[in-house]
């Protein structure tokens, strides 16, 4: 009885339901186009982005007085990266376990706490100075000469800082854009800073490691391989005839952002 009443009482709603079900089963339901372009507010035809010749893409400009030389070195770097560095890193990844590679990268990173600490001090960043000092002490002792990174586990994370940032802190501009053989994009300020940092590491010569690296070829190779291994970006990630311009733009703006943090601490 109940069933028959249900059937009798199903009025127009059930009919719709039936129609919907049948449309679902027996034919393709058609959606209408949602007209996304009509949802936008527009400028006049001649006022759009890049519609005027006066829109000169100024944001792409970078001071690059030795561009022709830079472009040759850039091509050289790409060839070396493709034919030597990347295959080497691939081999490195095949023949060593990830545990080994992490120990190597932790070990070399530990050395970088020295320039990081000294430069943080020069920038009056006491918090970062202590961060770098504690990291160096903890990782060099508990972390077995820097092979492990227990400092990160207790919340002291590595922050790279260098003399290039210190120069920026004291108002030195980046200078000309440079492409360095093997190292890639840089600037006068950045490469000078890098040289000072390296000198600093060599002078302090913690555990004789920096000295050893530069005197023994097998250490130097491991240092270089690790350097490339820890660099995530690859030239071949981009496919464009404007690769040089793109990398120059990205490098310069990235450095500007990094310097923003340093600059803000200056008085």
């Amino acid at each position: 009885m109940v069933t028959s009443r249900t059937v009798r009482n199903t009025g127009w709603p059930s009919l719709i339901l039936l129609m919907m079900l049948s449309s679902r089963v027996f034919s393709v339901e058609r959606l209408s186009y949602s007209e996304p372009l009509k949802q936008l507010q527009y400028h006049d035809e001649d006022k759009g982005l890049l519609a005027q010749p006066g829109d000169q893409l100024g944001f792409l400009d970078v001071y690059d007085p030795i561009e022709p030389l830079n472009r040759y070195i850039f091509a050289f770097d790409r060839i070396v990266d493709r034919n030597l560095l990347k295959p080497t890193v691939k081999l490195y990844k095949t023949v060593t376990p990830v545990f080994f590679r992490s120990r190597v990268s932790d070990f070399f990173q530990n050395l970088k706490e020295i320039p990081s600490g000294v430069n943080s001090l020069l920038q009056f960043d006491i918090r970062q100075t202590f961060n770098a000092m504690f990291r160096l002490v903890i990782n060099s002792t508990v972390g077995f000469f820097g092979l492990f990174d227990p400092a990160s586990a207790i919340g002291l994370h590595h922050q790279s800082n260098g003399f290039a940032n210190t120069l920026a802190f004291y108002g030195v501009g980046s200078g000309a854009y440079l492409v360095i053989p093997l190292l890639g994009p840089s600037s006068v300020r950045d490469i000078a800073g890098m040289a000072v940092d390296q000198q600093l590491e060599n002078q302090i010569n913690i555990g004789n490691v920096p000295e050893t690296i530069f005197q023994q070829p097998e250490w130097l190779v491991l240092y270089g391989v690790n350097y490339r291994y820890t660099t995530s970006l690859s030239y071949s990630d981009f496919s464009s005839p404007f690769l040089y311009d793109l990398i120059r733009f990205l490098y310069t703006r990235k450095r500007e952002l990094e310097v923003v943090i340093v600059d803000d601490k200056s008085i």
Partner: protein
Amino acid sequence: MKRFFILLLIISGELQAYGFPISNPFLATIIGTPPAFRAVSEPTTIQEAIYGLAEDKQHKAPDIFWDVKTPKFKFAWQKNKSPLVVIIAGTGGRFDTSKVEALKKIFYQSGFHVLQLSSPTSYDFIVSSSVSHRTGLSTPDSIDLYRLMQQAIERVKSSRSIAISDYYLVGYSLGAMDAAFIGKQDKDERKVGFRRILMINPPVYLERAVSNLDKLLLADVPGVDDSTALFNHYFDGLADYFRHHKSIDLEASMLRYVEKNIVGSSREELALLIGMSFRFSVAAMLFTSNAMTLNGKLLPEGKRLKLGDSRTKYMESAMHCSFQCYVESVLLPAVREKKSDTTLQQLYTENSLTVLADWLRETRSIGVMHNADDLIIDQEGLNFLYDTFGRRARIYPRGGHVGNFLYKENVTDMLGFFKNGYFPDS
């Protein structure tokens, strides 16, 4: 009354059935499918390599193209006898662009050999594989692509001991339209013999796609009157973010910033980003074709660029050429070299999906997946897909332009079509 509500619930359930989470088509186009909504992928070791066809090296190309003189492609192989799927990249994309890599993972995990090819509009293809070095029209491009495809298949067959059971073809965006043209050609010439072909978000009317994409740069964002203002608009925000957060890890915090701010952007801001990135692809096409053909449209006539020569000013002036400008100044003259009385309208018509209408209607082995909110089509184009493909068209309510192809339901449909020749539940 109660029953009426239940009915409402059913109806709304019916409408909500497709669970792709992003309803803003501009946002979907940019960020794609959020990881939590993607089809589950198992960690698989992919056996793969990049191959070069050294015998076809373009020795005459200017030195600045040293890295792309040899046609290249990527191939991932299975141990056992398996079907092979060829993937064609979308506008400007190289064979290993992120969307192609994502498709590769899907098909590889389902047991396909995967052959990845660059879009004819990509930098490397224009230099190494296009006969005219002027690409963007599916009719001539598909001829080049079909030839490259056959060479690539021959190459992998001769260099690896693999067994192929069947051939499949898939493309997205412009690559999807290329796939249809290749499908037609393959039907006539039978050199590969594709068992099934799937198009993901193809343009339908080329002219519509071109004008829609160009129009995005007209979007009105207050305070953004030129490209530098657009850049500063985002860069200043990023710098402020860094000032506030004194960020430790630049890359991670940049990602967080971008995620937060892209999601919070207005439709107009997103439209400008899509328009700019598309314009950048067109500029690369314009520059590459000009530097190859030396016809004096962008570079001084006959100028062969050397490795050390600056390209910055050419890039900047190329960025001022819209897609329509590219069609009129590069593609139309190229077509007229062969057929001098071709009109612009004919060029658009002959390179739209509609020119294949009869073949698409009767060919049961070709299907299409598209979105009702895709930026590159219109109502007329959507009608064409419904009318022509019938049940071989699967139209989703959301997803923007190629934003939802990794969504689990889309992946099920994609694999279902290849397996059965129809979409599940249709």
